[in-house]
């Protein structure tokens, strides 16, 4: 973390950018899938606008320029001047990609943006904006735009309560109260100007926006006449202070453009009904729902407005004198509860006030506490390092607790003794703490999934295929360390699914399928692991071809009889993917060995199922965390070792008669109808010079990540337990056959076996028959 506060703010900006870009993409995708919701378009606009605003503050000019063009088009869309059709959305999606590139480049995290690509999109966006007209020089546009957020945020005076409140009477002619009196002809035609009908939703207040500030902003654009319609106010006993009951009608004179007026409401537009109509047209026709309400009770409104006029001097005095936290009570008749309710948003009171005291039942019902139903979970950002430190500390706590438990057992204390009972409680508590600490690091896989639509788009573009990506289970949570390493294999497999799995549109149509192929990306929890499925509805694996290639490369014998499953698994073989022409054939093997390796390094497994003509499904199964492991504690040649439970199929005590030797040398274990290679763990790890005597030994049947089975021979199995994984590499280096280390209850280090390495190297070092016989 940098000490430079500017850098820290910048870092926060980029963090926000990440979220904004995520929102941007998901909203664009909603548009792509046919949403016509204006809120979605607004959300896209706001995301781009916010990125632009922040970028402007940090002088990131390239980013600002691009965002500006993007924003301009979005502005056209949200104003309805431009239809949001399919080609537009596609362009927008690509623009979002480039915007993300710009952000990454500005952050210094990505390669510089391809200028041609950026310029191309700028041109496209401008063409869409101007409906094909030659675009004006965009740089100029960017110059005269304000780069900040909406002016509301800059209006610091408003937040200097109560001093700010007392300043109110000096404000520009905001509530032109004198003008309220002649409201008999309320909407009289005025040359130029706008009629704005503004009906806040409760949400507006919940997100700490203030009507008063908006009105004040409007007043800056020109002389205003403000009319409050409080006819929607219920009687006091029916009043829900969290609801919104008021409607404002503002007439704004002067030559402010509609865009300027809209800008005022920029950040609240989602949370209110807003209609902006030219003033001279307003009196006549199209009045939105809000206005109708207004007109239904014009008399009341007028009466109240008049009353407001009378009370205003007293009100301003009382507001000026009132401390910020107690905004209300201009009328002594107002009962206490109402006073308490609006407290969270005191600043609102002053501007609201002109009309408020005129409404006897409830002066300020609008500023409300956040609606509980809409509240998102409260989150904080924490430096990952702090969480890691805590996880380490908890790991040690777990070990210490286990050591203590072991000591108590060894000391021969009765199980019912106070110490033993206390220790049991401690164990439960420790486990609970461990679980909660692990949960801190858990994150939804959304962050990875979010990046995939772009990849799919690019892949589809490159291959000329039509692809629809369907994702599910984005909220499935998994440890952050796992998440970080999921992106690469998923990227690879998606690319494979599109490149090799899906057919081209023509071929699909010929096969009686829709021209658009579907790729499904799903995440789910299954028996304590996270499962990621990547499925396509393409042509499936061409087994004949795959087998042919494998034979060609000498990976399998020509006459090898392989099951379908085994053939499918051939694509994971390292040799399979080295050939470039594989991608031209039907195989899906490009780099799959790399994928498998990276999944395995996470303690995961990968499997395929494929139906010819119907498609293929790749299934990844990964542990939820890399910090703990369910292990089987075993003994081999005086050493205590841990075998990952996930790899163990079963364990048994073998009969001497079940041991055979292939070619008279390599020992195999007859296990049901199969013969499995027998790996002597102690000997293989170099812990004993001689192979273990079979007598009294135990074997664990294990399955490697590639589905291969083997029998590991150990002296004894001590039991199953969860162990905290400790890196061997941190202070030493990787050791063949060892996946990691852990610390046992007695405080000693135990090695965690790398089953795959053991099985593959174990065979090379398997004891000869002579040695075996010597031992037994």
């Amino acid at each position, binding site marked *: 973390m940098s000490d430079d506060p500017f850098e820290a703010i910048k870092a926060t900006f980029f963090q926000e950018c990440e979220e904004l870009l995520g929102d941007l993409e998901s909203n664009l995708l909603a548009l792509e899938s046919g949403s016509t919701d204006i809120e979605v378009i607004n959300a896209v606009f706001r995301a781009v606008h916010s990125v632009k605003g922040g970028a402007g503050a940090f002088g990131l000019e390239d980013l600002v320029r691009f965002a500006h063009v993007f924003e301009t088009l979005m502005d056209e869309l949200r104003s309805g001047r431009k239809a949001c059709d399919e080609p537009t959305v596609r362009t927008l999606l690509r623009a979002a990609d480039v915007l993300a590139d710009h952000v990454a480049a500005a952050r210094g995290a990505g390669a510089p943006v391809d200028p041609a690509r950026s310029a191309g999109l700028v041109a496209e966006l401008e063409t869409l904006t101007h409906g094909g007209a030659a675009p004006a020089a965009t740089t100029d546009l960017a110059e005269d735009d304000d780069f900040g957020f909406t002016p509301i945020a800059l209006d610091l005076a408003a937040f200097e309560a109560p001093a700010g409140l007392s300043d109110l009477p000096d404000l520009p002619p905001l509530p032109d109260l004198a003008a309220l009196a002649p409201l008999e002809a309320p909407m009289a035609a005025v040359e130029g100007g706008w009629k704005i009908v503004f009906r806040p939703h409760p949400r507006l207040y919940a997100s700490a926006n203030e009507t008063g500030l908006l009105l004040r902003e409007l007043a800056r654009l020109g002389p205003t006449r403000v009319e409050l319609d409080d006819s929607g106010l219920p009687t006091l006993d029916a009043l829900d202070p969290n609801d919104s009951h008021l409607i404002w009608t503002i007439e704004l004179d002067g030559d402010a453009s509609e865009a300027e007026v809209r800008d005022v409401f920029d950040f609240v537009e989602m949370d209110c009904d807003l209609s902006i109509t030219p003033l001279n047209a307003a009196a006549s026709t199209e009045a939105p729902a809000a206005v109708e309400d207004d007109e239904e009770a014009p008399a009341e409104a007028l009466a109240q407005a008049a009353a407001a006029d009378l009370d205003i001097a007293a009100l301003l005095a009382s507001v000026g004198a009132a401390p910020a936290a107690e905004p209300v009570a201009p009328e002594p008749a107002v009962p206490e509860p109402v006073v308490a309710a609006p407290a969270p948003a005191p600043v609102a009171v002053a501007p609201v006030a002109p009309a408020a005291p005129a409404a006897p039942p409830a002066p300020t019902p609008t500023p409300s506490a956040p609606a509980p139903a809409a509240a998102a979970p409260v989150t904080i950002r924490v430096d990952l390092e702090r969480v890691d430190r805590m996880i*380490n500390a908890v*790991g*040690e706590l777990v*070990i210490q607790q286990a050591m203590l438990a072991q000591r108590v057992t060894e000391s021969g204390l009765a199980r019912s003794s106070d110490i033993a009972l206390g220790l049991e409680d401690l164990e439960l508590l420790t486990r609970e703490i461990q679980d909660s600490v692990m949960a801190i690091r858990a994150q939804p896989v959304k962050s990875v999934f979010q990046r995939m639509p772009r990849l799919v788009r690019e892949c589809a573009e490159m291959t000329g295929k039509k692809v629809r990506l369907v994702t599910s289970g984005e909220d499935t949570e998994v440890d952050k360390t796992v998440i970080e390493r999921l992106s690469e294999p998923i990227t690879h497999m998606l690319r494979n699914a599109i490149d090799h799995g899906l057919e081209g549109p023509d071929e699909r149509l010929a096969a009686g399928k829709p021209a658009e192929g579907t790729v499904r990306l799903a995440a789910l929890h299954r028996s304590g692991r996270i499962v990621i499925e990547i499925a396509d509805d393409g042509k499936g694996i061409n087994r004949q071809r795959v087998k042919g290639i494998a034979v060609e490369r000498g990976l399998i014998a020509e006459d090898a009889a392989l099951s379908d499953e085994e053939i499918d698994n051939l694509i994971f073989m390292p040799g399979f993917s080295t050939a470039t022409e594989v991608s031209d054939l039907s195989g899906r093997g490009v780099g799959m060995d790399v994928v498998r390796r990276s999944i395995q390094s996470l303690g995961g497994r990968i499997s395929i199922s494929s139906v010819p003509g119907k498609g293929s499904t790749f299934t990844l199964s990964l542990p939820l965390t890399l910090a703990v492991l369910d292990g089987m504690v075993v003994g081999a040649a005086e*050493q205590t070792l841990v075998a990952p439970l996930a790899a163990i199929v079963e364990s048994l005590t073998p009969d001497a008669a079940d041991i055979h030797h292939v070619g008279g040398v390599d020992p195999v274990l007859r296990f049901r109808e199969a013969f499995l290679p027998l790996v002597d763990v102690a000997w*293989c*790890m*170099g*812990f004993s010079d001689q192979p273990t005597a079979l007598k009294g030994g135990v074997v664990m049947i294990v399955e490697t990540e590639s589905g291969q089975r083997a029998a590991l021979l150990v002296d004894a199995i001590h039991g199953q337990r969860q162990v905290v994984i*400790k*890196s*061997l590499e*941190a*202070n*030493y*280096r*990787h*050791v*063949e*056959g*060892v996946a990691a*280390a852990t*610390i046992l209850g007695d*405080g*000693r*280090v*135990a*090695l965690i076996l790398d089953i795959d390495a053991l099985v593959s190297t174990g065979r090379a070092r398997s004891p000869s028959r002579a040695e075996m016989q010597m031992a037994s």
Partner: protein
Amino acid sequence: MTHSVTPNVAGADRELIAFRIGEQEFCVDIMSVREIRGWSPATPLPRSPAYMKGVINLRGAVLPIIDLGARFGLKTGEPTERHVIMVAHVGSRLVGLLVDAVSDIVQLSDAAIQPTPDVASDQVKSFVKGIFAVEGGRMISLIDLDHVLPEGEAEAA
């Protein structure tokens, strides 16, 4: 308080921890030593050089133990409870150095260090930065810790 502010001549003085392996004395910079502890049985690592005694648990971290005597090619036997582990920083890593005993803390100026004479064997020379004499006719070799970890990390995997 006034006398303590006299600055050292830059780099002239350094504090070293001297230790014994067999009859020989060596030393390392005191700044690289984090703690000194008694020998405790280590978990052996498969396929590791003979001087790797294995790993022990250092408050939750896995600490590899290097038998310095064996590393230098000196004759050593099995460690006993009297042996000592110096926990030292080597780069970003933490390693335990198994030695016979820690003998002294010595303060010396860099000027006192003499280059390693040619008589030393190549293996020793690769670990010894220099030697110097201390009172009582002792000779102490200054160890370069950067070279004690097994070389060729990459090839190990």
